[in-house]
């Protein structure tokens, strides 16, 4: 057991998720976040993951996980089956982002989406001055070897939500484990949003 500072993105998600809630993590990877939510918030957790080795790691953490491709949809689940559906760092990797997000919003009462911000100034500089596909701490992959299929910015996502009548309830921006409050589209490497399809006033 090692003690490390809590990654800031987990902290945000931890604060948003209510104790004892049911959580479906789409693209849960090795299950670190989900196991953390189980321990800290006693959530009822279910993961979906496409990678067999990651599933083995999830099972080793005591998580229940389905070996599936989230691009194939969540049609087995009825509406609002979960309190939260999480798409953390997997949203930009799915083929049909539209469909996956719509399905997440149908199946979950609320959806947590976290993704790397393509408009972070480091990325902008690399494109503008070097004329190259950016490689940054939050976008660490070379163009020819990246799991990311969509390159979206914070502003893109906000605009997308407005267009689709998706309510952004909360948002959190960070760079290297620091919270970013000002100009998130320029200064943050990662954006995390709590969204839902229902109308509800933010508090």
């Amino acid at each position: 057991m090692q003690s490390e500072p809590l990654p800031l993105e987990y902290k945000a998600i931890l604060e948003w998720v209510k104790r004892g809630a049911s959580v479906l993590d789409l693209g849960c990877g090795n299950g670190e976040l989900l196991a953390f939510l189980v321990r800290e918030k006693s959530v009822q957790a279910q993961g979906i993951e496409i990678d067999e080795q990651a599933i083995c790691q999830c099972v080793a953490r005591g998580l229940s996980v389905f070996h599936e491709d989230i691009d194939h949809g969540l049609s087995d689940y009825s509406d609002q089956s979960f309190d939260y559906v999480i798409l953390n760092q997997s949203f930009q990797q799915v083929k049909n982002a539209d469909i996956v997000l719509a399905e997440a919003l149908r199946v979950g009462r609320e959806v947590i989406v976290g993704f790397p911000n393509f408009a972070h100034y480091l990325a902008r500089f690399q494109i503008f001055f070097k004329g190259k596909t950016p490689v940054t701490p939050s976008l660490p992959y070379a163009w020819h070897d990246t799991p990311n299929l969509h390159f979206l910015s914070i502003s893109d996502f906000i605009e997308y939500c407005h267009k689709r009548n998706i309510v952004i309830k909360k948002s959190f921006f960070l760079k290297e484990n620091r919270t970013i409050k000002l100009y998130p589209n320029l200064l943050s490497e990662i954006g995390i949003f709590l969204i839902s399809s229902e109308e509800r006033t933010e508090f």
Partner: protein
Amino acid sequence: MPVLNLLAKKTNRITQPSNKGVGTPGQLIDSEGSNSVGIGKTNYFHFASPPNELTLETGERLGPITVAYEIYGRLNDQRSNAILILHALSGDAHAAGFHKGDEKPGWWDDMIGPGKAFDTNKFFIICSNVLGGCKGTTGPSSINPSTGEKYGLDFPIISISDMVNVQKHLVDHLKIDQLLSVAGGSMGGMQALEWLTAYPERLKSAIVIATAAKHSPQQIAFHEVGRRAIMADPHWKDGYYYGGQLPAKGLAVARMIGHITYMSEISMAEKFGKHLRNEKLHQFSVGSEVEHYLYNRGNHFVKRFDANSYLYITRAIDFFDASRGRELYEVFKGIKAKVLVLAFKSDWLYPASQSKEIVKACKLTGVDTTYCEIDSTYGHDAFLLEVEEETHLVKYFLQKVSFENGVAGEEYGVMEYAI
């Protein structure tokens, strides 16, 4: 954090199924020896003596019934650490360890033993031969008390649900209220599904491997060819062949067909694709290794298996329907047990799509389920051969179930963060 040694490249520790094997497909030799449950023996439990015969699914009554079973590990004081292992078509009660004088261990010895997936240091493992079998449990080759002769086709038609009912009587006999888990592959997986739906209150978890909630026409078709081969053997004599010549040729052909369905194209090519042998089996033989393999497997099988049992058991498998004619999720309602479903990529006999049907029903009813489709080239045999992946998944699944039920389990390693 737990060390994931399975992520290392697959090793060759998993031995090739031996041509000389007398076990189920791909029976393995315990190469380590040290982590064996050791020398054991089969026990026998007798029940359903008249007038208390067991009522079968068909309404017929059968008794007395003998159940052959083996046990490994220790039952704890709370009687809460028992796991029932469920064998496949040609398996038996001898799942692990050695019988005196035997060279080969039980059929799932790779998975059952100290420190193995079904860790006998922690769990009390039970495995019994199924009803209708020929390895100690009452079946068509047992003596019919009303005639003093072997049953033959006078043996009543049995089902997977009857097999499980008999297992429940054994579990009752062992004074175990709740099983920590039931686990099996292929027909064993069907029994696990039957346990889940018929006696959901009697188990905490189920491990369902490479199976289907219901046989497809393709699966029935292969079985039917095997049954026809047995019945076409002139020595079969409508099932009353005991005491005379056995329908060995028919049963051997049935077994050969079985073996074809247990392997994948790749596993066959890897095993037999390299060279041809000089000797031929018959004038039309091309002398391929695969011919010899199937022929030997078929011939060995007839020495240890009863043709009528093959008919009765394959019929039970083909007739099985976990959903009982309804939607599967309807019969899954109310299941509190945790479920682990495993499928194998190259298994075309029980394709992953059939496991996904089971998983779908679990999703719809909110049954706490883990599903993994293990990457393997072994075909259906994989459930006996992919020991490392299976071990990892089963071990941690059982650790979770144990921990939640206060059975010799430890908590998981979660990264310790300073909040």
